[in-house]
């Protein structure tokens, strides 16, 4: 189980593709900073991959009402807990 973080917007397509290619079932993708914009249109992720967005970044950018269905919001404590519940953290930036 790997926690992946992504902090760039979907216009950085090459990064997004590399990140998504690395995801397998039971992994979690955490969108943070500009990465939360990937939650607007949503992402096509492999089966069994959970997608969450960091609350402070969602609120800062005014997109709380615009998130695609299936994307959960977690706060900073939730971020820490995700790190605990996964064996490693890979950061895509």
């Amino acid at each position, binding site marked *: 189980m*790997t926690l992946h973080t992504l902090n760039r917007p979907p216009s950085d397509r*090459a*990064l997004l593709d*590399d990140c998504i*290619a*690395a*995801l*397998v079932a039971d992994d979690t993708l955490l969108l943070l900073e500009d990465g939360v914009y990937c939650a607007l249109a949503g992402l096509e992720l492999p089966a069994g991959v959970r997608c969450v967005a960091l609350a402070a970044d969602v609120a800062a950018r005014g997109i709380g009402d615009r998130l695609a269905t299936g994307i959960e919001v977690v706060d900073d404590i939730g971020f820490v807990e995700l790190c605990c519940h996964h*064996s*490693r*953290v*890979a*950061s*895509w*930036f």
Partner: protein
Amino acid sequence: MSHSKTFLIISRRPPYGSSHARDALDTALTTAVFEQPVAMLFQGDGVLQLLKGQEPAAVRQKNLGATLSALPMYDIENLYACADALAQRGLTQDDLILPVQPLDRAGIAALIRNHDVVLNF
């Protein structure tokens, strides 16, 4: 050292335009000096670090390719490249300064899962 962890360094930026490629390489070399098993994965534009014929003297930088070709001397022999990234750029093994194992998507996902520490640059 009592603890041992396996490290995967993912390098996905091209050389010279930013310090990412150099920082990835320095991290890999330093980790190897600590006698930890280190693998490197070149992904995206990072595969361009592997091109033969780099001559960075005119941009006043050290030759990254020359340092990369020394990786096996530091016992960093598990070198991988994203097969799609190579193909998209029209690169084959003959274009590269040292041999790397091409990996497909499933191979990359498995590689990440098989290492304790993953460092992206």
